[in-house]
């Protein structure tokens, strides 16, 4: 059978060595989000400064025609490229996830594409012809650029928010119910506030590089600082976002998962520092900010963005699309079938490594199919280290009842032999891959016990049951 014909799509899996796949997509994603959000806020800031310039502040016009517009240009081009890179890296991590997103939202994605094309055209036209254009045309061009870049955010935000909170879409509400989902509005407003703040911070850095007396730079900085004001709304928006999250996701962010809680803390702490400086220092006390301090705040903003994106990704667990697709790229409805057939019965792709026994080879295939999206064996989030001190029976129990072991893990989508194969693989890896594995084949009683544990755990996730997804989706 050709790999193209299998009922459940099996895709080839790439090994990134000690790098967890989430780190790969996270790295590209954070860079993309940071640049794209700056390009949005930067566009708005340019429109505002152009307006100031036309109302008699010549330094504002100098700012618009100077280095800043180059930064915006660089950002939207690299933002575009990293956007394409996001597609490619998402395919590496979860091809079924991106496929489902494309299937459900392709017309909205195409809509976003149109706005992005307008953004690129308007931005480049201003960059190239701006100095020779009349004031009104300049202002309109910048307004179009700012609007188009924000519209691009508007559309993509709805699609990303749907992954976490599909809302009434799960009850068959259709594409608009999915798009205008519970976290759509807080997420959009939050990202808009981040965008304007990033624009303000980069603006402050560029103003410091301008060849102007300090008092004239200070006047520009006071203007730019106004764009950081929306950061004051972030605590409320963050609480709103938390309130609309599913209860289990919220519990992991608020202490249930220490890693995620720490990232929430990093994002909140960095945002608090930036907001405090911007609101109290720049806006209320009208302090001067030098280039070094503005750069430091921008670095903090990058840290906050990185932590925030980690939180957004982590809060979806055990799903990549809540209620529809697990992080293993398996649909909830497919788990029962895989419990019967085995996790890799339909997997057409062979292993790259050689294993001394068939059981270990099976374990490697099961690990590749069910664990590899979020774990490595010896690198980041390493299975061998996570389970090093467990007894064999403890390991069997915890794998068989995976969704009970950790609430953010999906149910084990394989049979008793698969569980035992993974147990033996982890033991073999822990022992340094000996040429002759010590383990004897599992007894029928052991396999029967694992099967009982699998049955007890069931095929449902630990948190909310999968949504009543329209039949066509399941």
């Amino acid at each position, binding site marked *: 059978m050709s790999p193209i014909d299998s009922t459940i799509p099996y895709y080839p899996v790439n090994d990134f060595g000690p790098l967890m796949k989430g780190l790969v997509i996270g790295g590209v994603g954070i860079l993309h989000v940071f640049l794209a959000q700056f390009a949005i806020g930067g566009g708005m800031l340019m429109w505002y400064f152009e307006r100031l310039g036309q109302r008699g502040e010549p330094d504002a016009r100098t700012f618009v025609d100077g280095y800043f517009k180059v930064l915006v240009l660089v950002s939207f081009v690299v933002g*575009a490229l*990293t956007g*394409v890179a996001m597609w490619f890296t998402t*395919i590496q991590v979860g091809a079924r996830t991106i496929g489902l997103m494309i299937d459900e939202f392709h017309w909205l994605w195409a809509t976003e594409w149109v706005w992005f094309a307008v953004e690129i055209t308007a931005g*480049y036209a201003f960059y190239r012809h701006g100095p*020779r254009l009349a004031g009104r045309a300049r202002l309109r061009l910048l307004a179009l650029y700012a609007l188009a870049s924000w519209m691009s955010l508007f559309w993509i935000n709805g699609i990303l928010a749907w992954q976490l909170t599909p809302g009434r879409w799960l009850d068959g509400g259709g594409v608009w119910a999915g798009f205008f989902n519970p976290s759509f509005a807080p997420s959009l407003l939050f990202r808009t506030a981040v965008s304007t703040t990033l624009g303000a911070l980069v603006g402050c850095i560029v103003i410091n590089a301008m060849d102007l007396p300090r008092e004239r730079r200070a006047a520009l900085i006071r203007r730019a600082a106004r764009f950081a004001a929306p950061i004051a709304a972030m605590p409320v928006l963050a609480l709103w976002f938390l309130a609309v999250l599913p209860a289990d996701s919220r519990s992991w962010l608020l202490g249930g998962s220490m890693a995620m809680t720490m990232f929430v803390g990093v994002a909140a702490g960095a945002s608090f520092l930036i907001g405090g400086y911007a609101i109290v220092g720049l806006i209320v006390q009208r302090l001067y900010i030098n280039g070094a301090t503005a750069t430091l705040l921008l670095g903090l903003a990058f840290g906050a963005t990185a932590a925030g994106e980690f939180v957004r990704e982590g809060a979806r667990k055990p799903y990549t699309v809540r209620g529809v697709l697990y992080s293993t790229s398996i649909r909830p409805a497919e788990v029962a079938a895989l419990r019967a057939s085995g996790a890799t019965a339909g997997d057409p792709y062979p292993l790259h490594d050689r294993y001394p026994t068939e059981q270990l080879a099976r374990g490697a295939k099961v690990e590749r199919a069910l664990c590899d999206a979020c774990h490595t064996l010896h690198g980041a989030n390493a299975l061998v280290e996570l389970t090093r001190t467990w007894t064999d029976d403890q390991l069997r129990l915890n794998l068989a009842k995976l969704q009970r072991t950790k609430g953010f893990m999906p149910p084990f989508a394989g049979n008793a032999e698969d569980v035992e194969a993974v147990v033996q693989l982890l033991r073999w890896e822990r022992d340094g891959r000996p040429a002759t594995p010590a383990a004897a084949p599992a007894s029928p009683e052991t396999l029967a016990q694992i099967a009982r544990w699998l049955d007890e755990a069931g095929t449902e996730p630990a948190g909310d049951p999968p949504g009543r997804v329209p039949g066509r989706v399941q």
Partner: protein
Amino acid sequence: MMWPFDGSIGGPVESLWLALYLASFALHAVLVSCVAAGAGYALVAAVRRSADPIAARTRDWLPFLLGAGITAGVGPLLFLQLLYQRRFYTANLLMGPRWGAVVPALIAGFYALYLAKASERRRRLALGVATACFAFVAWSWTELHQVMLDDAGWRAMYAAGERFHTDAAILPRLAIWSGAMLALFAAVSAWPATAAERRRLAGLALAGLLLCGAASAIAAARGGGLALAHDPAHGWTSLLIAAAVIAALAWAWTAHRPGGRGLSIATAATAAALIAGSVVREAPRLALIERARATAVDAGGLPVFAVTLAIGIAAIAWVVRTARSAA
């Protein structure tokens, strides 16, 4: 409705996806042709140290054309994932990081184009780097196209850990594209050109069309022949050949009389050849279009896209008009 948009590949939704895929692909092809062939042309001019006004204009526009080309490429990339989802994802995964290298190559190419524009001293190096980057991207896309088709070989490719797909069809395909890129670049660049420049571009276009024809003939011969009497693309191949011949004749006329109507005819014929060529390129794999997933067929949002597209086209037209008023 004409084949293949007559529902023969599925329902009306699939036909619409296909039409949008091919239309956005053709637009993308024009822009990336200007980038790849333009960078190559500017590189040759820089190596020869000739003060070529075509090369100067091209250098000036290359960064924008690359940005526009990449943006235009998002459209076909989107519809490709609807039509050939499993094949596209599998090919991506099989080629792995080596496929992902197209992104840093494009970023390097983009900054090299800016360097070529800004620095005369580093121009040759920058254009060399940019041309190499774009050649790598073109090679990679051609390779990916072939991997998508070769589902029988996926298992072996994965087992061997191969990241390169050395298919005999890749070189002829690249040669066809190289010729087409020269012709498209010439058609776009000839409009603001002087009479002498148009003559040079006519030569370039004719060379491109010749390369395209020769490479196509070789590819057809290797593939068992392409009899016009049994056009596998339902007349599109005939249209492609007719358009290419008309374009060649019109370019010859332009070379003879640069101020005449030859350029208009050459441009129209090149556009027709591009559209027909896009369909002919797609024809062999139309049978591989995956059975449409119900989720995708039922997805809403088409009216919003249609309205936004109209607004977007109007907005871009306004931007172009505004920019031209400043030029």
